[in-house]
């Protein structure tokens, strides 16, 4: 029999005391230091999971809420602008939380010892401790977005796409049986990974038992007949999934939701595949009505909104589904749910030739209302691009998925966490100023001379390439190192159980279990950099209207009193206008950066390492650390977003923009966000022409569209009178948000984007 932690202690005073939790967690960790990582992790989860589970809230149709502990274990957890992975401590918040519970001097001393222990024992610090000298120099700070640098490490194992379809098909008992089978047939007498996986599944069952009790309590207090009905069904569902694979949609949803909560992943993957069959079965047998089905899907959306972070994604549609008709049926409910629940999940619709036209029509209706969802992905372009970028077969590429802001990976077969950031425009600054960050005076990167030393644009380009390669090599090494150490420290049990090959190989994801170990690098300011090169080429080298020395001065003085010279630079060709000169430079630049990153697979242990131009609002954040640039951009203002033009620089109409964008080879990277802002009039005024436009963009190789449908007046007015525009939603980059909640700089950047 399974030895569960005593349920009663969960609600007793004992466990509501965070001091007890942090000491329990720490002691458990210490007591298992000499055990294999899987065993230590399972032991720690047994402490952590009862602590984080939170009672259901009124109106929840699915059970499962959690809190984030300030000391714990995670694949990825953000605090402020710094992410954590593995074992982590958020020191200040932990101190604040524990302060009221400290009664004696002894407790205070113990806590200081505990904090001192975790200051070096947390996984982030363990990774940094293993940096080489050159890594430590260029990755001088973890505080990205606040301190100025070219490359920054991110500590996170983001974007796990687990095999939820397998979970739904096997259920808890089936998954347990599969692992037990492996354990029994294993040649080794002791197999810590399988045993620890079974412990993790016990904790999944524990969460079911916890919520059965919790829902029963709610049932006692409920007075409305309809509430009672719902709550009774919830108890039935929770009891059922302890012993059976899901037999109905609500059972599958409850199982998946709890598993998702405990795993720490936010990525739901191809939800139409794993929910579609049970949905259609329940509808066909009248087990649920259309209305009830909608309520369930919308309820799932509300849980995602309430519990998970902004990156949470749901993917529907596309090629490579085993049950396209059932999937399509689910997809219609999914789009409808996104019309009622804002921001997340980031519903993403994979489109392909011959797709059900009803789905596309419903998607465009939803976008036309200004919901920003679904994000449209083009399978016809993406599948071949993924085949090339990841070097995999069509069959594998058809299972591409994307997470967070849009990084591509292979569903439950690969990991592609973006654990590095590069500010490409900062790297150009170093190239112009001989390896000195002109914002801070800090020496960074290679010393290759100043702009004055480069006789031709080719000399400058060569130096810039060297500077970029230097930084990219380091950040790739950092990614490989991060995986290695996370592999030494963790087994990510919940994720490993639902990743292909881990159970078969008997290895955790980062211990050699995963089929494709990939990684991605977030690049920022791509187009600002290429437009800057165009302006330097034309205005400084060719027309010689501004000298090299003067340009350096203009960058340092932010064009103060030099509007005329700034205008010359602004008038140089810009990407996004179907202009050959600007676009050719963008292509050259794109190919250099993407290939330099992609070639890291030959230098490192990574199967793939790819650029993502996915963008959240980091183009704005990093822009604040970046001086004026040669394209005429002012200091500290936003850089270009994704592979979109610099804000407002695309002036030749949307077909010109699309033509420019599709010149950048999608087969060289792992995703780019293409934010397009339409007026309501343009988007809704003539639907057949709008469809023809998007269709042709996809035909030409466009990979995706992030569509905001807004009016310029609305955005302007919302900045002046935010209280009146509380519901205005825009697509920022890799996420959607209420416009009025964004900071002023981000608002300005969105306003300045061209409105079509």
């Amino acid at each position, binding site marked *: 029999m399974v030895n569960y932690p005593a349920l009663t202690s969960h609600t007793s005073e004992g466990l509501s005391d965070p001091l007890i939790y942090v000491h329990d967690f720490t002691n458990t960790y210490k007591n298992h230091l000499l055990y294999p990582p899987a065993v230590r992790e399972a032991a720690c989860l047994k402490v952590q999971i009862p602590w984080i589970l939170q009672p259901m809230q009124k109106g929840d149709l699915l059970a499962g809420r959690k809190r984030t502990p300030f000391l714990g274990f995670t694949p990825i957890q953000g605090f402020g602008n710094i992410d954590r992975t593995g074992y982590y401590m958020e020191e200040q918040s932990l101190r604040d939380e524990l302060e009221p519970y400290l009664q004696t001097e002894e407790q205070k001393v113990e806590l200081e010892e505990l904090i001192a222990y975790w200051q070096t024992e947390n996984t982030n610090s363990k990774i940094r401790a293993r940096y080489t000298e050159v890594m430590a120099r260029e990755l001088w700070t973890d505080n990205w977005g606040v301190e100025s640098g070219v490359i920054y490490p991110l500590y996170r194992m983001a974007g796990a796409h687990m095999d939820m379809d397998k979970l739904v098909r096997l259920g808890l008992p089936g998954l347990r049986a599969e692992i037990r089978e492996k354990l029994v047939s294993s040649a080794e007498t002791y197999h810590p990974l399988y045993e620890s996986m079974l412990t993790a599944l016990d904790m999944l069952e524990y969460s079911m038992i916890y919520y059965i009790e919790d829902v029963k309590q709610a049932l006692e207090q409920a007075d409305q007949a309809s509430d009672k009905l719902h709550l009774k069904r919830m108890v039935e569902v929770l009891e059922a999934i302890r012993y059976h694979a899901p037999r109905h949609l609500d059972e599958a949803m409850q199982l998946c939701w709890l598993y998702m909560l405990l795993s720490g992943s936010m990525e739901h993957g191809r939800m139409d595949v794993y929910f579609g069959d049970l949905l259609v079965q329940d509808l066909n047998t009248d087990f649920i009505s259309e209305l009830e089905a909608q309520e369930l899907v919308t309820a799932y959306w509300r849980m995602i909104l309430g519990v998970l972070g902004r990156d949470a994604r749901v993917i529907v549609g596309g090629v490579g589904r085993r049950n396209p008709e059932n999937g399509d049926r689910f997809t219609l409910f999914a789009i409808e749910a996104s019309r009622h629940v804002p921001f997340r999940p980031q519903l993403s619709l994979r489109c392909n030739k011959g797709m059900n036209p009803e789905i596309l029509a419903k998607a465009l209706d939803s976008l036309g209302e200004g919901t920003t969802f679904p994000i449209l992905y083009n399978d016809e372009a993406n599948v071949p691009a993924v085949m090339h970028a990841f070097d995999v077969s069509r069959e594998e590429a058809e299972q591409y998925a994307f997470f967070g802001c849009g990084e591509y990976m292979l569903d439950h077969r690969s990991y592609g966490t973006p654990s590095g950031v590069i500010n490409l425009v900062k790297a150009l600054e170093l190239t112009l100023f001989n390896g000195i960050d002109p914002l801070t005076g800090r020496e960074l990167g290679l010393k290759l001379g100043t702009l004055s030393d480069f006789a031709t644009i080719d000399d400058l380009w060569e130096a810039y390439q060297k500077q970029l390669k230097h930084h990219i090599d380091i950040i790739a090494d950092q990614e490989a190192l991060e995986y290695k150490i996370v592999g030494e420290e963790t087994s990510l049990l919940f994720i490993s159980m639902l990743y292909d090959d881990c159970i078969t190989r008997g290895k955790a994801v980062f211990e050699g279990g995963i089929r494709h170990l990939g990684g991605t690098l977030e690049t920022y300011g791509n187009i600002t950099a290429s437009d800057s090169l165009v302006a330097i080429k034309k205005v400084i080298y060719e027309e010689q209207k501004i000298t090299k020395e003067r340009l350096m001065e203009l960058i340092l003085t932010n064009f103060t009193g030099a509007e005329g010279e700034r205008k010359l630079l602004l008038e140089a060709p810009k990407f996004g206008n179907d202009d050959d000169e600007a676009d050719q430079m963008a292509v050259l630049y794109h190919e250099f950066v993407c290939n330099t990153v992609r070639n890291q697979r030959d230098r490192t242990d990574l199967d793939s390492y790819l650029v993502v131009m996915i963008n959240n609002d980091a183009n704005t954040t990093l822009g604040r650390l970046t001086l004026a640039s040669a394209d005429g951009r002012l200091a500290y203002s936003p850089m270009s977003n994704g592979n979109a033009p610099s804000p407002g620089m695309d002036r030749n109409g949307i*077909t*010109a923009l699309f033509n420019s964008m599709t010149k950048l080879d999608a087969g060289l990277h792992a995703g780019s966000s293409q934010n397009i802002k339409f007026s309501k009039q*343009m988007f809704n005024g003539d639907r*057949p*022409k709008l469809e023809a*436009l998007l*269709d042709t963009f996809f*035909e*030409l190789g466009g990979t995706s569209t992030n569509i905001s449908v807004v009016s310029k007046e609305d955005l302007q007015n919302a900045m002046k009178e935010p209280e009146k525009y509380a519901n205005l939603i825009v697509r920022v980059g890799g996420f959607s948000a209420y416009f009025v909640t964004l900071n002023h700089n981000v608002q300005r950047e969105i306003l300045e984007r061209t409105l079509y």
Partner: protein
Amino acid sequence: MEESGIVFDIARFSLHDGDGIRTTVFLKGCPLRCLWCHNPESQKFEPEVYPLEGDTGDVKTIGSPMSVSEVINVVMRDLPYYKRSGGGLTLSGGEPLAQPDFSLALLREAKNRGLHTCVETSGYAHRSILERISPYVDCFLFDSKEYNADQHKEYTGRSNNVILANLQWLCEQGVPLILRCPIIPGLNDRPDHFAEIVKWVNSNSNIIGAELLAYHPYGRSKGDGQGSTFIAPIPTEEDKANWLSIIRSYGCEKVVIG
């Protein structure tokens, strides 16, 4: 020598100048001087210099000479969009028929490249020009400003005799066309004017339909240099519905608000 002409704008992703997604090439220069002109900077045949908005002292030049291949190179960039949507090239102005050789060369080249072509015209041109050009035009967007000759002269500076004769000729030839009818409150929003539009549409099978284009004042802010101070009331949605109901009462379904 390759033909060239004065172009004052090229608008890509143009949705309101014929079928599908189009590129509209605006040729500079127009023989008419409509009181309500929306594009006053297109009236003169030569490039002109206008001050930019605000008091920056900056100026912008409107209109530049372009060769046929320069124009066609821009137009061809959106070929996939035309193919998918049934769109193509639209010549507008100004008055494209006032640069007849350039227009002809552009249209001929467009047809060589397999493009669908439209010409937006006031119809004020010598018949021989129309005869030369019409074989290369899939659809005319033919202005229908005023059917009364005196009023036409008052509103546009020219009589409508030539225009109506050309319209009649195009109908006899069976060339597809859409009537484009600017409706200016106080000038031509009269029932008898609507009745004339209906008569033309109903009695000629080549006329696909008519679009009523409600007056808007945006032309005035561009600084037309013509001293135009023309102001008309801006039609409301109610006014527009009213126009349509009058037209429907005359028994015509092929007229829409453009």
